């Protein structure tokens, strides 16, 4: 790779730098700030930084070039994925307005921003090293985020996440090693060499690499950590994990497996991914059925939803990619919205994540209940939400590209999931008077976020892709 670095290279990662700097700024500001406003100052700074980064990212929309000798790529995909990462970060940061201990807010925010940096790095990663770097940056920050929370169960979650994630990273790393061995280069572009199509080392490498990816995406059978960690981690962190992390990892998945592999035998090479996706749809949705904790349920829901997204990618068609992106955007909004509603209802003990607390909500907090209904409808894939449209996109692309069995599994999974989501809706509109802890009357930031997400989830259905 050429050593000389141009300004264009720096421009490519400017947004990431801004985000990282914002993390530092938050910490510094926290030292100076007066006690009773520090929470809001920190959040404000973080949000400003995120929005600034977002502006920079979208300024690059439409441009296509690679920086640092191919280590980092700016293109349509990178911009969109980075956008979603920032969206996730924004939606999670805002939740700290309702949750968490005053004195730890700043640290948590900084960590979250840095973690987001990792995810953004992955979104544009052009070679194996960048991928690894971004992944580790993302993960380490997340371990810490779980660890520093004082919440009961957070530590256990941190430990489990640490050990299992590191193990998976080990597999991923070894896979990278094999790929490097097979190709003699760390650049993704080198993977597309037709000669590799029958190279056993290469195949093994691909397999191990996918293990690492599948773990981060919490696909069955590498999903086992997700429910526990989602339940244990603090609400904002869970929200972040469910959106930002997955955005970065998905970007890698697309780049490596869809755009870089040799075209020959590629369908054989990818078949296990689609099988895994199909299993995830079923297991994830079945897992939701008997849950009592909202975050845990959303973990299973996330497992299934990632399955849907992979189903869209299965064909490898452009339309499938669009479908996946659209559904993922919708997915981000509905998840962030659901977590926002949970935050609205949460006091210090996160009452909002206990499903039992939702019974009769429709009569106590009609607006919150309405928003929650919208998000659940969207997750279940019912109109008039983007969830429905996204699923139709996916169905169409997977049927057209001949993966009918994935479409069928998607429909079955959706049918099962309806029961689970329906349970919560039913609870919300049941007249049974359930003893409910005194939830905070009004959490402006969370409510705002919930409202925006609700509107977005419906607005996304208008004129999608009418270009």
């Amino acid at each position: 790779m050429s050593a000389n670095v141009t300004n264009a290279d720096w421009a490519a990662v400017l947004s990431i730098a801004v985000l990282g700097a914002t993390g530092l700024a938050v910490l510094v500001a926290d030292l100076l700030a007066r006690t009773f406003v520090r929470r809001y100052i920190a959040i404000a700074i973080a949000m400003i930084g995120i929005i600034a980064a977002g502006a920079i990212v979208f300024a690059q929309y439409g441009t296509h070039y690679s920086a640092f000798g191919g280590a980092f790529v700016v293109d349509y995909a990178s911009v969109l994925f980075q956008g979603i990462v920032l969206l996730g970060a924004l939606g999670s940061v805002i939740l700290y307005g309702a949750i968490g201990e005053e004195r730890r807010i700043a640290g948590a925010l900084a960590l979250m921003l840095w973690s987001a940096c990792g995810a953004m790095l992955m979104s544009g990663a052009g070679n194996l090293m960048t991928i690894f770097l971004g992944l580790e940056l993302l993960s380490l920050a997340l371990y810490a985020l779980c660890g520093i929370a004082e919440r009961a169960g957070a530590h256990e979650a941190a430990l489990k996440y640490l050990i299992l994630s590191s193990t998976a990273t080990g597999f991923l790393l070894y896979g990278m090693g094999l790929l490097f061995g097979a190709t003699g280069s760390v650049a993704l572009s080198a993977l597309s060499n037709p000669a590799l199509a029958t190279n056993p080392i290469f195949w093994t490498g691909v397999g191990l690499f996918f293990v690492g990816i599948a773990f981060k995406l919490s696909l069955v059978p590498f999903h086992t950590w997700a429910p526990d960690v989602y339940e244990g981690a603090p609400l904002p962190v869970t929200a972040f994990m469910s959106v930002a992390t997955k955005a970065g990892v998905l970007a890698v998945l697309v780049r490596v497996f869809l755009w870089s592999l040799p075209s020959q035998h590629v369908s054989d090479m990818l078949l296990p991914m689609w099988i895994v996706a199909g299993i995830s749809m079923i297991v994830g949705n079945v897992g939701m059925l008997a849950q009592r904790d909202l975050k845990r349920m959303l973990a299973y829901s996330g497992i299934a939803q990632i399955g849907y997204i992979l189903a869209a990618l299965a064909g490898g068609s452009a339309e499938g990619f669009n479908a996946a992106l659209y559904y993922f955007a919708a997915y981000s909004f509905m998840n962030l919205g659901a977590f926002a509603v949970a935050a609205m209802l949460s006091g210090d003990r996160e009452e909002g994540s206990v499903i039992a607390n939702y019974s009769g909500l429709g009569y106590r907090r009609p607006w919150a209940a309405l928003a929650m209904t919208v998000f659940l409808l969207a997750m279940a894939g019912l109109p008039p939400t983007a969830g429905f449209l996204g699923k139709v996109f996916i169905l169409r692309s997977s049927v057209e590209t001949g993966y009918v069995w994935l479409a069928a599994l998607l429909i079955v999974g959706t049918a099962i999931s309806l029961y689970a989501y329906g349970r919560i809706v039913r609870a919300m509109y049941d007249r049974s008077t359930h003893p409910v802890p005194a939830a905070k009357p009004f959490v402006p930031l969370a409510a705002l976020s919930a409202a925006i997400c609700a509107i977005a989830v419906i607005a996304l259905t208008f004129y999608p892709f009418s270009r």
Partner: protein
Amino acid sequence: MMLLLALLVPLAGAIACWALGPWLRNLAGWLATAAVGISFVATLLLWGAATQPGGVHLALFSWMSGFDFGLTLDPLSLLWALIITGVGFLIHLYSIGYMHGDRAFARFFAYMNFFIFAMMLLVLSDNWVGLLVGWGLVGLASYFLIGFWFERRSAVAAARKAFILNVIGDVGIMFAIFLIVANVHSIRFADTFAASATFGAPLLYAICAGLFIGAAAKSAQVPLHTWLPDAMEGPTPVSALIHAATMVTAGVYLVARCAPLWSHSPRAQMLVGTIGALTAIVGAILGTAQWDIKRILAYSTMSQIGYMIMGVGVGAYAGGVAHFFTHAFFKAQLFLASGLIIHALHNEQDVRKMGGLRARTPLAFWAILVGVLAICGIPGFSGFFSKDQIIQGVLENGHPWMYGVGLLTAGITAYYMFRLFFITFLGEYRGNVDPAQLGMAPEAVGAEVAHEPASTGSGEAHAPAWVMNLPVALLIVPSVLAGWLLFSTDGASSPWSRFFAAQFPTAAQASAAAVPEWATALIALGVVLAGIGVAVARYATRSAQANAVARLRDESLRMPKLLVNAFYVDTLIDGVFVRGARLLGSLFGRILDPHVIDGAVRGVAASAVGFGVLVRALQSGLVRAYALVIVLGVGCFLAYYVFGIPR
């Protein structure tokens, strides 16, 4: 216009009585009577036009192509219309007295007028649907009037029974209409008859069968007859008008109206003739076993209609219609007269508690005597001519065994009618004899008590007002003389046959009979006299009258169960159809719905939750277990990627 007037005035009367009843009070009766009278006059004014070839026709409106509605008045419908409105008028008049003081006086006349309207619609329609509408509405009117005293359980049940059995009839006609519309694409009689020549025998038979189900239900033919005796729960004028003179003869009208269809289908003729004959004999036999004066008359009605159906069925249209004509008079008269008695005895209907009433109700005595002579077919009285025409006509159309049945029935009729007459009027009054001595079942006594209508006549009407006597007296005239219209020295050219010359061309070409008419008359007379003789021997002799109580007692105790239960037809229908339906219903409603269908749904939901619990169980929470799962997954992957490489 006149036709519409004749049709709609009674309807207007009905609506007026129904809506303004509370304000009209007793005026309602006169209003209704007047309405029927107007209708009668209007019909009468149309006589001339109606008897022209083609008759009067009035097109009304059309639903869509093929569904054109209109009214028509030809000799046949003219005859019916005149009887309906004429006899109806008299009976309305009578009812003013009979129903005097009833709690729902106005409503009664609303129903009666409504009935007249419906019946006129039935006979005036020029199409099947119109006929069916009338058919259904007369059934409704009869339902209302049978159940008029609706606080009485028995009346309510009887009304429902009558309605449902009649609906079965309607359904039969509907079926015939399906066939007709499917093949003719028009609902008008004219088109149907015009096309009937092209029908195949099976189609024609099916149509006739469907129509005849309707006729049988309406005219109380076996096996759909069971509602008629129960229908006597209604007030007596109702029995006279609807269940004797007019409605129950609608079947006869229908068959006569469809002469072009029947005359082309020998099988249908056979069917109808057989049913008619059967009904005639069964009705007569059951008539001998009754004690309630109205039930006796009811069974006699049934048997007489059997005659008519038999006649029109086999093609002796003129005879059958003629018998309807005469029967309308003398049967109405019999009912009204018995109404006088019932009235005089405070709603006592059991003949065993009567006797020696000649002095108390002389008018009733004479009226019933004339009626009995007429129905038995004593020469000179109306019944004689019409019944002879039927019996002779049956033979001429080549059904000797029906001929025999007809004669036999005539004999039995003579017996039970005179039985009625003797028991009621001879001997001395038994009203104050203990019922048990008369062999009346105790529950029958209870029934009598429950039989006390809401407040009919409110007691004081011992001496009936002229409104009640006049119609009875007036009716005596036609029931004696009406028959002479049929009399002629030379067969074909009686005024009657001239009147119907255009209507029933087929009646002319009847084959020469094996037995000449005068002989038939003599044989019939002989049989009738025999029947009368038996009756006299059993009830009219000195000794019989001396110990009437004992005689009646052991007769009623020794009455064969078979007859008492009317051949168990009711029991059969109830046991098989009614109970069967309710059994199925409760089976479906109580077991299939809640347990089988919903059970399946619940099962699905439960199994879903089961899977959820299973997954929870697998999620043990142990890090190393998770790690193991991951490693196993990796194993599978490697297995695929290492061994699955294309070579």
